[in-house]
């Protein structure tokens, strides 16, 4: 593909200019005449019956215009996918601190706040379910009150059945058995959740939103508000970060604002403040992962059995699917004779969990990559050598029993980070005995990550391209760019496929009224699925242009060749792009095309735990070098070396941005980002208590892409946004083991954990939560 002109070349991002000048408009930057401000009354207790809910005092507050509750939604606001177990606003009971109970619309934010404080609500406390290991006990209180998907607090199970590992484990020379615990993680996007809902003539609704998946948002809004899909329009504003985090909470926020807009006939804007966002929004699920790993004395991995339990929290949200992805990766990117995995997910009152970058794989890889390191230590083997001995290579069979019919550059990834980090020298130097307060270590972890949705469901995207009389080319997409750079990828693919200058391309904000439904913007699938759909659509419109050019140049369409934007005939006559567009219009041709691309079909059988989970995988490896102060417990990451193999890189600056950004989130996950629940009360209620790494805490990162052309990718590209973070945390834990000789087998490794082995003392209770939620000063 040496002839590529824009793909893989340096490029500015499609929407960077409006962002560096401060002109990009996010939800809170929209204001329309007559707009009301909304505020949600949220539960300050983790589990209780709502015995009384009287909103009439709020309606007496000056400036308050309306209040909505569960009764303002169809079926009391019951919604959720894949399990319908959540409410737009709590009905009958609250299940976590932050659960929305009512929403007030008022002439000002101050009046809305006074409004929620005036609402009379009586809670009758229920026993709190906070320990995932006791959630399935027969005597445990039960969190869901909808038709239970399993029984009690069981929200689902997943399994992998690839042979029988038990006899092999029994016969293995070395068997390692350990449990690893992962706390929740908060997305902490810098922009909080919000919505602007505008009532339309004829009973319709337009909603400006900052979630990820506009068509799912539209369908939920229509269902919850009792409107046909055709009467609800969702427009994506600029989104200030999401990382998986603004879908379900975003849909709830939109529904709350939407109900008030319909009720009042006025536009309603609802923006969550930071504490609300931290308390009410869903998290990466906490997970306990128990690994049994068998190897022969020479270090060859034999079999694995993994049991994991995910904390779904109050609602299942995406946890059934992220726990499935965790199951599909739980034994890591290695060759085995047999693997079995058993996963379950349980309801608790610990907030609620849902999608977050990596989607179960940070925990799966986080566990197995510590376990493999522990095995290397027992066998007195270099951790990279042991991985190279066992890692997946071309034509190998994965832990789920599937032969890899694609490039598998994992060994190359490990070799690259080994050389670039000066691994062998540092590893030896740090092993030679260190004394004093400050110790150093270097650690490695590698990963595989199934591309796109896999067995989760239908996987497709549809784009449209049209060309106007000025030669401007407009692409519509139902997939959202919340910072990951997908708009730029589409611009580059379109420019490449159509042979046009980037300056001609316009991509309107995603809008359910003008774009075509394309499934969710999740699973790092925007480049692969959306990029392919863009290319398919561009090829269609190119045929129309070639036909017009052939007509004007008196040759056959297949005789047209291109030089830049020029269309050239066999007799070397040529026309500019604008001339071809003009001629096509004169011919009455429609310069419009719609194109769809679908993932090749495969099938995973959820009941038997067998089948094909993903069409293809990306691979990668990371090395972390750390320094830890044994007196203070503070760990400093000195450097990260990272390589990712995800096919062809389409947009280099964007790709490196994803790599660096993913690693920064991995550093936070490993060391500082601490979401704890104490009897259901969240401890991370502001950004002072939830520490996101700053510019000094993210070290220089040496990043690299091992590129190849995947046959099913647009110009050979697969995906990358999520996998970039999943081996950062285990690499850091493994480096800390070299530095200290200790393993904590839990994240985050805060100074307190390093010093005492236990978590921070809990101090946040109902009073602090009331304050943080605005219920009192």
């Amino acid at each position: 593909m040496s002839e590529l002109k824009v793909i893989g070349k340096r490029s500015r991002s499609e929407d960077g200019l409006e962002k560096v000048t401060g002109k990009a408009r996010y939800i809170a930057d929209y204001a329309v005449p007559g707009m009301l401000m909304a505020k949600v009354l949220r539960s300050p207790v983790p589990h209780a019956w709502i015995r009384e809910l009287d909103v009439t005092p709020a309606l007496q507050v000056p400036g308050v215009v309306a209040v909505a509750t569960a009764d303002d939604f169809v079926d009391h606001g019951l919604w959720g996918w894949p399990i319908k177990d959540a409410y737009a606003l709590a009905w009958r009971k609250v299940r976590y601190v932050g659960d929305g109970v009512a929403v007030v619309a008022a002439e000002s934010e101050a009046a809305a706040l006074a409004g929620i404080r005036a609402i009379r609500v009586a809670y009758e406390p229920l026993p709190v379910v906070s320990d995932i290991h006791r959630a399935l006990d027969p005597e445990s209180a039960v969190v869901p009150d909808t038709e239970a998907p399993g029984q009690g607090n069981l929200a689902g199970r997943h399994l992998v059945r690839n042979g029988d590992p038990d006899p092999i484990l029994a016969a293995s020379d070395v068997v390692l058995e350990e449990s690893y615990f992962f706390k929740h993680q908060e997305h902490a996007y810098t922009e909080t959740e919000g919505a602007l809902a505008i009532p339309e003539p004829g009973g319709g609704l337009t909603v400006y939103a900052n979630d990820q998946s506009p068509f799912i948002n539209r369908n939920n809004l229509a269902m919850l508000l009792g409107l046909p899909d055709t009467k609800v329009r969702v427009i994506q504003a600029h989104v200030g970060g999401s990382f998986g985090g603004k879908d379900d909470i975003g849909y709830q926020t939109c529904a709350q604002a939407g109900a008030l807009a319909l009720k009042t006939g006025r536009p309603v804007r609802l923006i969550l403040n930071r504490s609300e966002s931290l308390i009410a929004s869903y998290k990466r699920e906490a997970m306990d992962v128990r690994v049994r790993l068998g190897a022969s004395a020479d270090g060859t991995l034999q079999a694995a059995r993994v049991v994991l339990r995910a904390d779904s929290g109050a609602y299942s949200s995406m946890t059934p699917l992220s726990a499935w992805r965790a199951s599909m990766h739980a034994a890591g990117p290695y060759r085995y004779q047999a693997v079995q995995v058993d996963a379950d997910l349980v309801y608790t009152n610990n907030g609620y969990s849902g999608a977050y970058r990596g989607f179960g794989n940070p925990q799966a890889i986080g566990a197995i990559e510590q376990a493999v390191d522990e095995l290397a230590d027992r066998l007195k083997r270099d951790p990279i050598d042991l991985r190279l001995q066992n890692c997946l290579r071309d034509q190998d069979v994965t832990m789920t029993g599937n032969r890899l019919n694609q490039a598998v550059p994992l060994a190359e990834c490990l070799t690259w980070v080994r050389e670039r980090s000066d691994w062998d020298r540092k590893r030896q130097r740090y092993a030679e005995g260190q004394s004093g307060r400050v110790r150093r270590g270097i650690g490695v972890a590698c990963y595989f990550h199934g591309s796109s949705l896999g067995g989760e469901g239908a996987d497709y995207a549809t784009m449209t391209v049209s060309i106007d009389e000025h030669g401007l080319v407009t692409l519509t997409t139902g997939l959202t760019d919340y910072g990951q750079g997908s708009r730029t990828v589409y611009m580059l693919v379109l420019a490449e496929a159509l042979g046009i200058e980037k300056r001609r391309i316009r991509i309107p904000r995603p809008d359910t009224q003008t774009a075509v439904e394309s499934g969710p913007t999740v699973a790092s699938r925007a480049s692969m699925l959306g990029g392919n759909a863009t290319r398919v659509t561009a090829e269609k419109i190119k045929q129309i242009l070639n036909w017009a050019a052939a007509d004007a140049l008196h040759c056959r369409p297949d005789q047209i060749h291109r030089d830049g934007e020029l269309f050239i005939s066999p007799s070397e006559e040529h026309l500019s792009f604008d001339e071809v567009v003009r001629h096509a219009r004169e011919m009455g041709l429609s310069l419009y095309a719609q194109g769809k691309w679908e993932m090749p079909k495969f099938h995973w059988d959820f009941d038997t735990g067998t089948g094909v989970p993903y069409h293809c995988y990306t691979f990668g490896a990371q090395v972390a070098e750390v320094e830890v102060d044994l007196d203070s417990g503070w760990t400093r990451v000195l450097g990260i070396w990272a390589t990712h193999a995800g096919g062809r890189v389409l947009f280099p600056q964007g790709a490196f941005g994803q790599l660096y950004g993913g690693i920064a989130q991995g550093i936070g996950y490993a060391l500082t980002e601490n979401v704890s629940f104490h009897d259901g009360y969240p401890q991370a209620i502001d950004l002072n208590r939830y520490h996101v790494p700053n510019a000094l805490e993210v070290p220089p990162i040496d990043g690299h892409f091992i590129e190849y052309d995947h046959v099913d990718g647009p110009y050979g590209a697969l995906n990358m946004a999520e996998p970039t973070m999943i081996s950062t945390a285990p690499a850091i834990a493994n480096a800390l083991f070299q530095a200290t000789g200790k393993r904590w087998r839990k994240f985050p490794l805060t100074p307190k954990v390093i010093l005492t082995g236990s978590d921070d003392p809990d101090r946040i209770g109902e009073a602090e939560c009331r304050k943080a939620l605005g219920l009192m000063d």
Partner: protein
Amino acid sequence: MNIQFTLNGARMDLEVDPDRSVADILREDLHLTGTKIGCDTQDCGVCSILLDDRLVKACGLTARHLDGHGVLTIEGVGGPDGEVSDLQAAFLDEGAVQCGYCIPAMVLAGEALLRRNPAPSRDDIRRGLATVLCRCTGYQQIVDAVAVTARARQAARTTEVVR
């Protein structure tokens, strides 16, 4: 309270509640929405502006503190005809922009640093950016953008001296 200050080079004369936050006044009264709100509790720094060349969090600054001072927001960084500054251009070229929400504050943090320290090391740059949180980029390309701009400005100054 009547306050007089310069905002992006223009003289301002406002009658305001002296205890209101500058972030509110910029966004609500003056419609300068390039200053973003991420927390309103001075933890994230995405509302940062320059007050007399010093980086400050606008959510924690009250109106009374503007009186007699000079304010620069993102709207005042580029040229009069909408052209971007060299630093903004470097953000675009280095791929330093993802979701964009922290970027106005990051541009101002970089600008404040370069005014104070024309030849910063990469560690200096990281220190200069440390009060503004970015959740997308891992900071590396933002550091690159500031470093590239520092070198270009140094080179331009050297050329000037030679001439």
